[in-house]
């Protein structure tokens, strides 16, 4: 006789071998969770770049989902439930389990071979010694059960075993009181051309769902009520996918065909992959021979009147630096995307980091200002990408868009807009002057923005280049005063972007008080949670998360001064801190984690509390 327990939120980690289809299981469960109205956040952890041998620790692939009836800001720091398909998967994830967490293990993944591959000592077996003491351990012979369930299918064991993950999924659906229909639908679309596989998977799914009838450990089921999400249309989305949509939306809304020139690099590659699928939106993608060619091709496309975009990660951004300078001189629209990863050098390619901020701001020769915007969550990539394009086009400047590996691969529900409700981006093309007035390519409006003169337009022939230009005419000029004027003009142009971005508002918490949590990029979730926790403890705390890193919103300084202390958590060695200190001459407390992984709620919470204790003194 099973009882039903209500939970406000749950963190589940499904882990197994790269071959076990954990990512698919995760995405199905996510889809179902979303449809059942919970708020959620997910994060996959793939094995490091090289495919490691089956069964080894290096080969473990996992999928983490945090869902709840309350607002969910992060994929969660520790797990309530772990599904471990083999010994390696258990070994890797054990350290992140909450006290008393439930562990569902596939006994069949713990034979001597698996244990050896997972580098357990001879004779050591976590299922038999006291390793799992204090956890609710549910051992199931998942492989056997699956084969059993599929005995009537004329499929080899290898193929049957592929359905293991569906059996697990079936069980999870039962455990969380979910209907089967949604996943059935997913399966049907995915395997529409493979009827037997489809049936086998459904069968395994059912078997898992009905395990409870036979396994008496299964005493309790859980319900997580729908979250109170705003009314509207939702979908679940990953960061790089949202970024792709933002670019395409900007292309449509500006009427400029999208050109994406890129060279593959983790974790930016799938932006190229995704955009390449959307040729029917007039998107042109170009896999260049290297990052330099990638950005230069985008410059050429922008020069030709397209919305030129290039994307990469840290090492690639370094290679693009010289060409960014050219774009700054040309004063044409260009968006440079940096999906940051662990550095320096090749660093930790599959891990996340926020350590390219200073490079984005300063990593070019000469006085070379560019607007910099950052995305703060998977779904926010849509807005951020759109905003980067808007600034690039309306201010005739290259713009850097910062994302990171955590955002890129993470997912969350997104209340998406109607195309019709997305604002238009109007473009200012130059036109030939009347009655013989000569065309001045570097004539500017009051925001220091020049007009876009596209090759092929009659009467606007002119020459541009990387040498300093004479004001107005754009001719090469070595005149000293002109150089200073142009340097200042390019700077002012970028600073004036601040007139066209909203003033900074509090992302949560109070307008003033003891502590301001100031963040940017992928720390958004943890900053939110921590700020709320601190408020619950009665502290006067606010959270501001920066979309615009250059220029800053005009009122940022005022906000900073309204708080006793400023805490800047970053997944780097304190880069935003440097910029804030320089701009506002204010002291900041920095919390830096440089481990290739997100900052957890509790570590930041503890740090922040200590700060405020010190306040009281």
């Amino acid at each position, binding site marked *: 006789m099973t009882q039903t327990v209500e939970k406000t939120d749950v963190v589940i980690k499904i882990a197994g071998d790269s071959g076990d289809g954990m990512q698919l299981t995760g995405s199905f469960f996510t*889809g179902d969770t*979303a*449809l059942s109205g919970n708020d959620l956040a997910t994060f996959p952890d793939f094995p490091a770049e090289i495919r490691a041998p089956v069964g080894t620790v290096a080969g473990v692939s996992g999928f983490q989902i945090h869902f709840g009836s309350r607002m969910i800001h992060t994929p969660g720091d520790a797990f309530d439930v772990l599904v471990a398909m083999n010994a390696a998967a258990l070994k890797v994830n054990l350290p992140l389990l909450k006290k008393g967490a439930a562990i569902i293990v596939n006994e069949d993944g713990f034979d001597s071979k698996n244990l050896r591959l997972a580098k357990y000592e001879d004779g050591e077996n976590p299922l038999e010694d006291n390793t799992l003491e204090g956890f609710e351990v549910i051992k199931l012979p998942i492989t056997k059960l699956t084969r059993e369930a599929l005995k009537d299918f004329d499929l080899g064991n290898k193929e049957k075993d592929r359905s293991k993950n569906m059996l697990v999924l079936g069980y999870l659906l039962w455990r969380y009181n979910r209907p089967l229909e949604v996943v059935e639908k*997913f399966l049907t679309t995915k395997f529409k051309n493979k009827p037997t596989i489809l049936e086998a998977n459904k069968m395994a799914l059912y078997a898992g769902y009905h395990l409870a009838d036979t396994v008496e450990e299964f005493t309790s089921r859980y319900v997580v009520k729908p979250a109170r*999400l705003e*009314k*509207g*249309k*939702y*979908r*679940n989305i990953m960061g790089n996918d949202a970024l792709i*949509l933002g670019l*395409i*939306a900007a292309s449509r809304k500006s009427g400029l*065909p999208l*050109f994406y*020139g890129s060279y593959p690099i983790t974790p930016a590659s799938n932006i190229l992959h995704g955009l390449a699928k*959307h*040729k*029917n*939106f*007039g998107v*042109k993608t*170009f896999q*260049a*021979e290297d990052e*330099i*060619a*990638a950005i*230069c*091709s985008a*410059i*050429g*496309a*922008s*020069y*030709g*009147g*397209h919305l*030129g975009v290039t994307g990469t990660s840290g090492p690639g951004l370094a290679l693009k630096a010289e*060409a960014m300078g*050219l774009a700054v001189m040309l004063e044409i629209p260009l968006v440079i995307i940096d999906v940051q990863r662990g550095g320096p050098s090749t660093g930790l390619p599959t891990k996340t980091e926020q350590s390219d901020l200073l490079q984005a701001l300063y990593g070019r020769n000469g006085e070379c200002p560019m607007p910099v915007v950052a995305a703060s969550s998977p779904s926010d990539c849509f807005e951020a990408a759109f905003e980067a394009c808007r600034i690039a086009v309306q201010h005739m400047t290259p713009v850097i868009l910062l994302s990171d590996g955590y955002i890129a691969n993470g997912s969350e529900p997104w209340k*998406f*807009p*109607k*195309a019709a409700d997305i604002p238009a981006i109007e473009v200012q093309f130059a036109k030939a002057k009347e009655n013989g007035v000569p065309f001045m390519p570097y004539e500017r409006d009051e925001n220091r923005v020049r007009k876009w003169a596209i*090759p*092929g*337009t*009659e009467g*606007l*022939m*002119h*020459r*541009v*280049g*990387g*040498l300093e230009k004479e004001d107005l005419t754009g*001719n*090469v000029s070595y005149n000293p005063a002109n150089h200073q004027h142009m340097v200042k003009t390019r700077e002012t142009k970028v600073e004036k972007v601040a007139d066209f971005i909203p003033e900074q508002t509090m992302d949560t918490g109070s307008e003033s008080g003891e502590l301001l949590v100031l963040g940017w990029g992928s720390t958004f979730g943890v900053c939110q949670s921590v700020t709320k926790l601190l408020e619950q403890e009665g502290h006067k705390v606010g959270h501001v998360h920066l979309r615009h890193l250059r220029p800053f919103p005009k009122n940022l300084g005022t906000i900073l001064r309204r708080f006793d202390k400023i805490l800047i958590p970053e997944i780097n060695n304190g880069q935003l801190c440097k910029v804030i200190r320089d701009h506002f001459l204010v002291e900041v407390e920095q919390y830096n984690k440089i481990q290739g992984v997100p900052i957890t709620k509790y570590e930041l919470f503890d740090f922040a509390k200590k700060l405020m204790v010190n306040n009281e003194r």
Partner: protein
Amino acid sequence: MSVATTDHTPLKAKDFATDQDVRWCPGCGDYSILKQVQTVLADLGKKPHETVFISGIGCSSRFPYYVETYGMHSIHGRAPAVASGLRMANPDLGVWLITGDGDGLSIGGNHFIHLLRRNFDLNMLLFNNQIYGLTKGQYSPTSEENKRTASTPFGSLDHPVNPIALALGSDATFVARTMDRDVKHLREMLQRSDAHRGTSFLEIYQNCNIFNDGAFFTFTEKATKSDTALFLENGQPLIFGKDANKGIRLDGCKPVLVDLAAGELTKDDLWIHDESDLYKAQILARFFDDPATNPNAFPRPFGVIYQTERPCYEDVLSAQVHAVTEQLGEGDLDELIAGRNAWEIK
């Protein structure tokens, strides 16, 4: 490359001159090239606004400032990448790519080989003066071995790049060579380059009278030209020499010098130039020894060494964009944003 033009108002060379004063050293070979390009542009009859010149950095790369069309003086070595992007964005523009032996073959070498294999439809003019002019006279990848320059006071050590061989090795679809001092041939080669659809690689021997004066005089000056320069014409035998007394024949795939005066062999025994024969083009590319230092060197070939047809990258790209749009239908932004598994909260 070539793009047709509509309503026709005859243009003159001077219509393609800008108001900027030309800043090359007096006597620089670049002047001659500029003049011939302006002349050819006028003949081609494309409107000034339909043409774009893209260059890198170098004396030669100052070229766009002097041509009354659209132009970009980009960064060192990257013009091919910029031009590729421009071609993909707007395949209707006539694009000329101006580069030097340092810009195109040293720092720009990677873009060079990838441009050629992708075969974007544009004309690449490589001003080869076998020196870095703008930076005041360091040796370049095309400088002969053991050259004494600012950066190699005791002589350079590198084996030089053979631009024609490299272009063929990069599967170029049009490979030709000409010289600044033979304006008629230069003009003809510019026209041929423009007529070819695909990347037309034209190497132009250009005299840098300041840092490498006379580098090509053996090939360009009256006294020696006829014995050292071999002017190729499709379908014609390989003949050269004062009063056309020398020729080249093929013994298997080994080229052999022939003295026609001796009378044993005649024109009919000679190698007939076939622009479409890659195997033979690869042999011609190896006529690269210096007749000044090596008396039995083969003469240096000028003219169209190789030409073939291959789809241009930007054309297949546009075709794919169309095909996919046909197949999937013009993209709908709302559908795209909503994706497949949207839900509504009421």
